């Protein structure tokens, strides 16, 4: 066997082993992969365990691994009779791609990502809701799987349904493109990014959400219809959530609304009722 053949065979074997190990970590047990439903919610968050807003809305909830503590584990429950799985990743495009890779050849067909982001223009406030229609690809991770000319676009049906559901609440809602892939480190507050962010505001970007482009592109690759709903946790013109006038209560309220809307939309998807 040539060196190249040997390398390729070894890599393929390792990938399958890696996939099995990661699925076990992601879902609490490897066996859960075969139990996945068509609808899934992926929470991107480093703090606050916002995935806890979802489970009270479900019946027959089962949790696996360390759920809801961040760092592995999953939950499943019924929403109006529809089984929906919840997984949660810590932060960053790499982790997001890892989680999506684990859904390769899975039964998942509809996925909604929930998270929080930085608002860009002055009319976007902390606690507002944002439904991204598309994401500027700012990270290199997406380049591994999709050439640069491929846009990261949310599924139209899921996005429209999310907008309808979130509008019902009367909560401030913005629908449009965002920038994605900025570093989670200093994020938009990185001093060297000032000019870039300004140009993005001029281009109509609503904010910066790290994992959106990776999630949307990976979903497209895997044949999963995906959309996202995010809340604004900090913004350029007013500062961070903890110091702002809106504060924690609005954060919790926004997460509750996103949880309800995403479950309802996935139920609609499962029952063929999407717009």
């Amino acid at each position, binding site marked *: 066997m040539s060196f190249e053949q040997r390398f390729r065979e070894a*890599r393929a074997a390792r*990938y399958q082993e890696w996939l099995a190990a990661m699925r076990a970590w992601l879902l609490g047990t490897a066996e859960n992969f075969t139990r996945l439903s068509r609808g899934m919610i992926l929470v991107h968050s480093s703090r606050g365990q916002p995935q806890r807003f979802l489970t009270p809305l479900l019946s027959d909830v089962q949790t696996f691994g360390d759920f809801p503590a961040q760092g592995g584990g999953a939950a499943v429950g019924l929403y109006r009779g529809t089984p929906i799985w919840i997984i949660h990743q*810590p*932060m960053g495009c790499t982790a997001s791609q890892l989680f999506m890779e684990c859904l390769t050849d899975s039964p998942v067909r509809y996925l909604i990502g929930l998270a929080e982001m930085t608002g860009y223009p002055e009319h976007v406030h902390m606690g507002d809701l944002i439904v991204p229609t598309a994401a500027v690809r700012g990270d290199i991770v997406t380049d591994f799987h999709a050439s640069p000319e491929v846009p990261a676009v949310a599924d139209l049906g899921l996005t429209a349904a999310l907008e309808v559901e979130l509008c019902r609440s009367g909560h401030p809602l913005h629908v449009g493109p965002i920038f994605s*892939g900025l570093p989670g*480190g*200093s994020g938009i507050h990185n001093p060297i990014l000032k000019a870039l962010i300004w140009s993005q505001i001029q281009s109509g970007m609503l904010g910066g959400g790290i994992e959106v482009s990776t999630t949307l592109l990976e979903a497209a690759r895997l044949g999963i219809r995906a959309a996202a709903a995010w809340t604004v946790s900090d913004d350029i013109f007013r500062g961070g959530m903890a110091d702002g006038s809106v504060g924690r209560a609005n954060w919790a309220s926004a997460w509750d609304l996103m949880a309800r809307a995403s479950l309802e939309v996935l139920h609609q998807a499962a029952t063929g009722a999407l717009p």
Partner: protein
Amino acid sequence: MNEHYEAAYVARSNEWLNDLAQSRAALGDACRYVILVIGSTEYGGNIAGCLDTVEARGAFIPEPTEVEQTQIMRGTYQGVTVGVWHHAITRQAFGASYTNMALDSLRGSSVEVVIAIGEMSSLQEHLRVGHLALPTAAIRGDDMHRYVAPPEEPAIANLRVSAALLAEARANGVRVQPGLVWGCGAGAGIYDPLLEDTALAYCRQGVLGNCMEVATTYLVSRQLGLACSSLWLVADSIYEPLTWTRPVMRQPWSPGWKTLVHTALNTCVRLDRQETDRAR
């Protein structure tokens, strides 16, 4: 650029940097050396056990969080004050974004030397699970790639710290392989089916393997004026079956991890003595 925007942006940047500065309070002002653990706090207790004394503990997030364990420690080892800094604020988290945040929090501190330790995937048959590697430079391919530094800027380890790490390992009979690594931010890393050709090419070029966060570690450290090098434990290899006992993200605390920590600590002592000798 609009003046209102500029003022707001600068204010937010300053707030962020001030928050980060407060987060390192547990390190105090006497700490010249930091061991950056590329990982979360699972091994905090074990690492504390490697120190002679633990003088202070702190959390990166100063609010109640699900992360119960200490994220920052300051202690002494053979008379040298050393800080231990876990890069992740969330259990079992990984990635260059966390590294950037952890290093940014050292901005303007008394810290001068950072030794990062973590786990890697090997691309070379001779670099087996349990072996140690020292990345002298990294191919930039993580998710921070576009914003940390211009693409032409190489991610290189500090020579003095690297030499001290190698000397310390050699003195203790620890075999360490120095060389070029890949800072690959793909979810599946070197096992990604769509990166197979790249991985094969890098293998042929002698690239040791993937240390996901190393490029950002070196670039951000250099920007902050920190002398930085790193030491990585091979957790898996393309040539060896994966034996992970998931569901956990990292290798269990093992002789390999203990060697990583002790080599890093001994290197801090070596560097400190070099400084003292030089001062004389």
